């Protein structure tokens, strides 16, 4: 187990270097003038552009730029955004918000998704199963920004149940509506995944044996079947944590949440490459760690999967 973890951690190093280089290369070889828009609706004066390029090493060849950047990253310096603010400083502030939003969404998704899946699987073709089927279909069919805007309009503006936007108040309550919207699509997939798995497992031999032994239904489902059915669900959740954190761009824009998604969106618009690379690198790290945790969880759920 320990050896496995160390090996996985070491494997992350080439992945990170490779990924940052690819991102760096793509972001900085994109056409586009980073000073566009800084001077209003007109080109910037030459002296301003020259100073700007000097400050951000934009005149160097790409490899030299990347080398300078990585040298900083190794020392914990992610560079400065085009606004002159250190990326690491802003990123750490924003990460707290996005992580909160992502974990809340993950929690909502896991609780509601698994519960709905179990209830649907227990009475296949019953009323609850049909409700879950139809409602998940509806949620999957709706694009995220539509769900978000509609809920914002009704729950926020019309009925005044939730704050319309989040702004600087990133409390649990303020983030609840955005987290719910964010969770909605994955929640639907998760419920369906759970239902299929559980109902399949319920028909298997070991369940029949358990029943024959006279175990109560709660123990058959709650301990024997559920645990086995959770393996693909945990895989999905682990993958989804990364997707949730990276996929908040739309939600953070609509609800004005000062998180990483908003940061990346602004940076892409401003062609603020250093920020894009820094933020995406941080997301890659989250993704890798989430996957590691998922792999370790397998062992706990199913002892047959060994990491030694």
């Amino acid at each position, binding site marked *: 187990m320990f050896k496995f973890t160390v090996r996985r951690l070491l494997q992350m190093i080439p992945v990170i270097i490779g990924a940052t280089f690819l991102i760096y290369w793509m972001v900085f070889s994109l056409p586009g*003038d980073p000073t566009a828009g800084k001077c209003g609706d007109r080109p910037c004066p030459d*002296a301003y552009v020259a100073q700007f390029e*000097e400050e951000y090493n934009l005149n160097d060849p790409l490899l030299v730029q990347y080398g300078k950047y990585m040298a900083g990253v190794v020392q914990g310096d992610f560079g400065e955004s085009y606004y002159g603010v250190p990326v690491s400083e802003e990123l750490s502030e924003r990460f707290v918000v996005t992580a909160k939003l992502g974990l809340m969404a993950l929690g909502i998704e896991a609780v509601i998704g698994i519960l709905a899946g179990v209830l649907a699987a227990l009475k296949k073709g019953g009323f609850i199963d049909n409700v879950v089927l139809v409602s998940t279909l509806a949620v999957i069919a709706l694009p995220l920004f539509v769900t978000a805007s509609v809920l914002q309009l009704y729950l926020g503006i019309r009925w005044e149940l939730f704050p319309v936007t989040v702004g600087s108040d990133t409390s*649990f309550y303020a983030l609840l509506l955005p987290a719910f919207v964010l969770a909605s699509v994955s929640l639907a997939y998760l419920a369906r995944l759970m239902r299929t798995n559980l109902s399949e497992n319920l028909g298997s031999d070991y369940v029949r044996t358990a029943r024959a032994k006279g175990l109560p239904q709660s123990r058959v489902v709650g301990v024997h079947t559920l645990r086995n059915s959770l393996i693909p669900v945990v895989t999905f959740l682990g993958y989804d944590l990364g997707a949730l954190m990276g996929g908040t761009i739309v939600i953070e824009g609509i609800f004005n949440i000062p998180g990483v998604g908003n940061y990346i969106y602004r940076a892409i618009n401003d062609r603020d490459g250093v920020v894009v690379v820094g933020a995406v690198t941080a997301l890659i790290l989250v993704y890798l760690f989430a996957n590691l945790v998922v792999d370790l969880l397998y062992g706990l759920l199913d002892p047959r999967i060994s990491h030694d």
Partner: protein
Amino acid sequence: MRRVRRSLTLASALLVASAALAACGGDDDDGGGGQSESGEQTGGEITVRGCNPENPLVPGNTAETCGGNVLDVTTAKLIKYATEDAAPQNDIAESIETEDNQNFTVTLKDDYMFSDGTQVTASSFVDAWNYNAYGPNGYQSSYFFAPIAGYADLQCTGDGEDPCAGQGSQPKAEEMSGLEVVDDLTFTIQTTEQVSNLPVRLGYTAFAPYPESFFEDPEAFGTMPVSAGPYMVEEFTQNEQIVVTKNPEYSGEFPGNLDRITFRVYNDASAAYADVVAGNLDVTDDIPVNVLQDDIWLSDLQDRGTEREQGVISTMGMDPTVDKRLDDPALRTAISMAIDRETITEQIFAGAAAPADGWVSPVVDGYVEGQCGDNCTYDPEAAKAMWEEAGGIQGGLTLTYNADSDHGPWTEAVCNSIRQALDVECNPRPVVDFATFLTQLGDKEIDGLFRQGWQMDYPSIENFLVPLYSKGASSNYYSFDNADFERLNREAAAAPSVEEANLLYQEAERLLAEDMRIIPLWFTTGQVGWSDRVSGVELNAFGVPDYAAISLN
């Protein structure tokens, strides 16, 4: 506000632990109601939409609206433009006098103070202007000082991408010879040529005075500027908010009504708009395009909105020396008459643009209606007739634009309009970005039509003509070279009064209508919407809400 709190309590009880409730209360503090018990018409606090400034809050290095909106209320200049008609009024200036339009004497009022308690003196201006103009500082607004004698000596002389790099390319001087401090409250400006409208230019943010503390640490100044305007920056949190409060030292004629204005940063126009509709935000000057359609926003806000044309014009140009097919002015006029400006501004811009009737924005001093006349009126039959009489052209037209901005839809629409009216092939042609676009224009590589836009620096008719179309001007991509145009501009610059100068500039503008190589398309309009808590919201000629004039209901 109050209703929000009640339902909020209910929802919280149902949904979450009570801890969340306390945390939510914090955001609603700005709702005046309870705390301003004095209940006066002045005072109180509002929250308005802001965006993150692209540069530090230094007046000489801010040319975009995110920082500009804040600086607009924190800085005082020699001149202030009236909100309604952009007419220049003396602010810090007691008087600006000249006899020959080349030597100006500026006298300051003696009671203007910076927010740090130091006095605004003649050297606050002269030092600031020299600093802004000095090439190696790389300030955006450097070019504003170009008319002042000695400006060239402050510029780097090297060439290539960075004119300041390399030995011997440093500027000759650090101070412009044309600026001289006479005494504490008087200084003189000498320009290289006659400039009859110099006083009008001095109201732009770039001409704001700097306190002594600026020169000690320009960088610290950029996050917490000290200024002489009715408001001062109290808090500046990157990407979150900028708070300005009343400047206690302000003694000028244009004090604000409110005690405190918070610019809350939004990245998304829809989020700010939703907050205004719900009453959580008081003013937004960025109305999303989807609600501009059919005036949805005005019904959402129950008519608490207004719109106004701005000093921004979009044009379409061509260079007959590059594309020789377009040498006949009749052909160029036919193209202009083939464009259905009315429908395009309605359909594509949903009213965020208004058809242009000339080359000068209606918000500025010296504008006259209909300078382009029939040449800018959609008339497909007449256009077709004119086109055929002039012989048409071989091949098709292209309309080149920079693809890093949202020009795709309208170029498509303009080409459709031309194609249908004149029966000539017309295709939009994207160039990857603005910088490449300008380089290609400068190198005379773009034939056919190309887009251009201009945002005014100061509200004068001159600013829409001379920097764009005079011979050798850096933005004259049209090879427009007209002796009469040059003569009229020269005469206007030497005219004894602004009124007489404007008449001459108007005559010069009419020459553009004879030539038609620059085709006016539309003026950008700006919108502002507000909550039911405030009143007196108006846009100035620059499309910026006059925050200082807003009051609580």
